[in-house]
């Protein structure tokens, strides 16, 4: 048995160009590809198509684990299901209790702001996606989700779960999108401590359970157990989505900055579903538009791109606003951009 098919003899008879020459050509092609891929532009469309071409293979590769999960699900016992239903019922009751006074609080909030009606929810639209592949390594923390450009998903779109922020869309294809998790070592997310209003940037560490806040000065009010929410300064995430909980605060008196670690609230192993969200434009809690930030900044600042390219400079975080408890950009009576302009956008990583 020589070959499977009619492989055939070499049509180019004999030699053709030498290996060395051909190697040179292909190597050059690779370098050109790399250059244009980094630069962005026309290769992005090519990549969009390539993602579509690879998608069936990705599905096929992940089908064994999908089949295994399906098997496991179909063979769950009645007791297990009953237990799950009970648990869900309890959860629902608790959630209902929590939202019981929501309407009253909203109208109260509107009165305080001097608005005639309560503001609508900041999340205008959402889309449920199913996780196809999870890649969690120190090099990369990515998800592959079965929604892409055809479903209206766009680049740099926030992705959350029921617990908190998961990440953002990094690359899209027509049928699938790649999501960079907030724990990816290339991801940086502007956050705010819910209790004290201290703002900083949460950097991914490459570990699924830890975020790092390296730019918080020693004397700022951050405690273990504090909840971090998105500050909305990045122009990607709306304000106030829960991100993480502080797990460790180390204050070394010889260092100007404290070492702070936090554990992300969203888990990816637990549920295989994620939510793509669209923020309502013009809403006070909507992500800050890049213009609003640039106007405020004396020097032209680049819009915050949470996918950081160079190492952001350790800029001093803004002064903690203890006077205003839980000072939030959305709490001001002024409309959205103005409200956010009170915050010094110094913590925006400037590329």
């Amino acid at each position: 048995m020589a070959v499977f098919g009619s492989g055939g003899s070499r049509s180019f008879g004999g030699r053709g160009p030498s290996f060395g020459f051909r190697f040179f050509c292909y190597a050059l092609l690779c370098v050109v590809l790399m250059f244009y891929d980094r630069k962005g532009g026309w290769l992005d469309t090519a990549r969009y198509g390539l993602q579509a071409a690879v998608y069936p293979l990705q599905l096929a590769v992940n089908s064994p684990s999908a089949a295994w999960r399906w098997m496991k699900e179909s063979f769950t016992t009645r007791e297990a299901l009953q237990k799950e239903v009970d648990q869900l019922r309890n959860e629902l009751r608790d959630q209902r209790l929590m939202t019981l006074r929501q309407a009253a609080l909203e109208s109260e909030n509107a009165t305080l702001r001097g608005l005639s009606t309560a503001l609508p929810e900041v999340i205008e639209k959402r889309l449920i996606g199913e996780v196809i592949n999870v890649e969690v390594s120190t090099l990369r923390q990515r998800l592959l989700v079965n929604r892409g450009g055809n479903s209206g998903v766009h680049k740099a779109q926030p992705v959350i779960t029921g617990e908190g922020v998961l990440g953002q869309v990094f690359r899209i294809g027509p049928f699938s999108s790649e999501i960079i998790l907030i724990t990816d070592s290339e991801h940086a997310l502007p956050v705010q401590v819910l209790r004290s209003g201290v703002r900083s940037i949460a950097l991914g560490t490459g570990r699924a359970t830890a975020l790092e806040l390296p730019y918080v000065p020693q004397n700022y009010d951050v405690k273990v157990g504090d909840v971090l929410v998105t500050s909305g300064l990045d122009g990607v995430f709306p304000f106030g989505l829960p991100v993480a909980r502080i797990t460790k605060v180390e204050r070394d008196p010889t260092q100007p900055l404290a070492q702070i670690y936090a554990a992300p609230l969203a888990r990816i192993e637990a549920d295989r579903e994620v939510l793509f969200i669209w923020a309502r434009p013009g809403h006070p809690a909507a992500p800050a538009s890049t213009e609003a930030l640039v106007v405020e900044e004396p020097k032209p600042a680049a819009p915050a791109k949470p996918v950081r390219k160079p190492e952001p400079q350790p800029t001093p975080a803004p002064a903690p606003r203890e006077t205003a408890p839980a000072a939030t950009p959305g709490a001001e009576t002024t409309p959205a951009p103005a409200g956010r302009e009170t915050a010094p956008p110094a913590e925006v990583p400037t590329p």
Partner: protein
Amino acid sequence: MNLARREPRWSVALSVLLALVLQALPLPTWLEAVRPSFVGIVVIYWAIYAPHAGGIFAPWLAGLGLDVFKGDVLGQNALAIVLVAYITMSLHQRLRNQTLIQQSLFVYFMLTLNEAVVWIIEGWTQHSISSPWRWIQPMIGAMLWPFVAMMVGRTHVRT
């Protein structure tokens, strides 16, 4: 050399595709860390035993597939693989006369070179993380080499 010899093109295509699948298969984290470059191993095999079947085009395409799959910069893995294929092809006559164990050593160096090239390009384009596992993967690859070589060797007539 018999020029009319049939080249095992189908074996090349299928084995490279299989290697890509193995490379993309989701694995638990601890296994993921030690997964060697299957594409590298297969490309080295064909570069030694049938350098004209796939030429440099097949390794290049495999590397590009790997780039799209892993979401790396396009051309990153392709360049590394093409370099490995070229070096192996230029030494293929000498390598054919070596035992599998001797070849393993060569495979180890080539896979390390592959990793090193990818690592350097990562350093240029994004920030790279040098985890020690990175340099252990080529060793695992070299250990797997005799088995892979024997398995792939059954798909075609060695000359």
